[in-house]
């Protein structure tokens, strides 16, 4: 699946988008998997309460299953308007 990062999550991880092959069943499992990879991921995901997640471009939550999902995006709370 495609994993996208925005705002300071993108800056901390150092890239806007990557292709990830994963067996993670939920968003939380994917976060654990990524955090285990490298320090920059662990730093970005250190405080999950400061993050939001979208699955296939719809706001979701960290308990949500990943089955069938093609695009996951991680970002801080939005500041539009």
């Amino acid at each position, binding site marked *: 699946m495609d994993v996208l990062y925005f*705002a300071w999550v993108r800056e901390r991880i150092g890239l806007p988008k990557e292709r990830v092959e994963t067996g993670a069943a939920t968003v939380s499992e994917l976060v654990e998997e990524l955090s285990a990879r490298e320090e920059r991921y662990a730093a970005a995901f250190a405080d999950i309460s400061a993050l939001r997640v979208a699955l296939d471009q719809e706001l979701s939550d960290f308990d949500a299953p990943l089955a069938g999902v093609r695009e996951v995006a991680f970002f801080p709370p*939005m500041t*539009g308007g």
Partner: protein
Amino acid sequence: MRIAVQEQPFDLGAESDVFAAAATGMGAVVTFTGVVRDVDGGLEAMEIEHYPGMTESAIRKIAEDARDRWSLGDVLVIHRYGRLAPGERIMMVATAAPHRKDAFEAAEFLMDYLKSRAPFWKKEITRAGEGWVAARCEDEDALKRW
């Protein structure tokens, strides 16, 4: 209903005129315009990042929710992204309704949801450095009244 997510400036006067002229049979037209503010002095630019693909559909959903909740003739949302200078207009919404209460409430609803539920992120570039604008608790709280 028109939703525009764009980098280039928009023409507030022309958009207001066209929107109001098209809203036949409506008694009330409300517009809101957001402007880049240099609160502490020293702001050089505001950089607005967004999530292409999701942005327009998220805004469309918010606008459709507004149409379901209030009696509205029309809705307009324009939101810019990219690098903006202080004083530049970031975004506008417009609502047209038979009565003023619906036009006002729907415009406030749109603004409250655009603030916290549309995938935009703002970064302030100042002479001293740069930093992401943090979401404010009161903006999240503002959603509770709807």
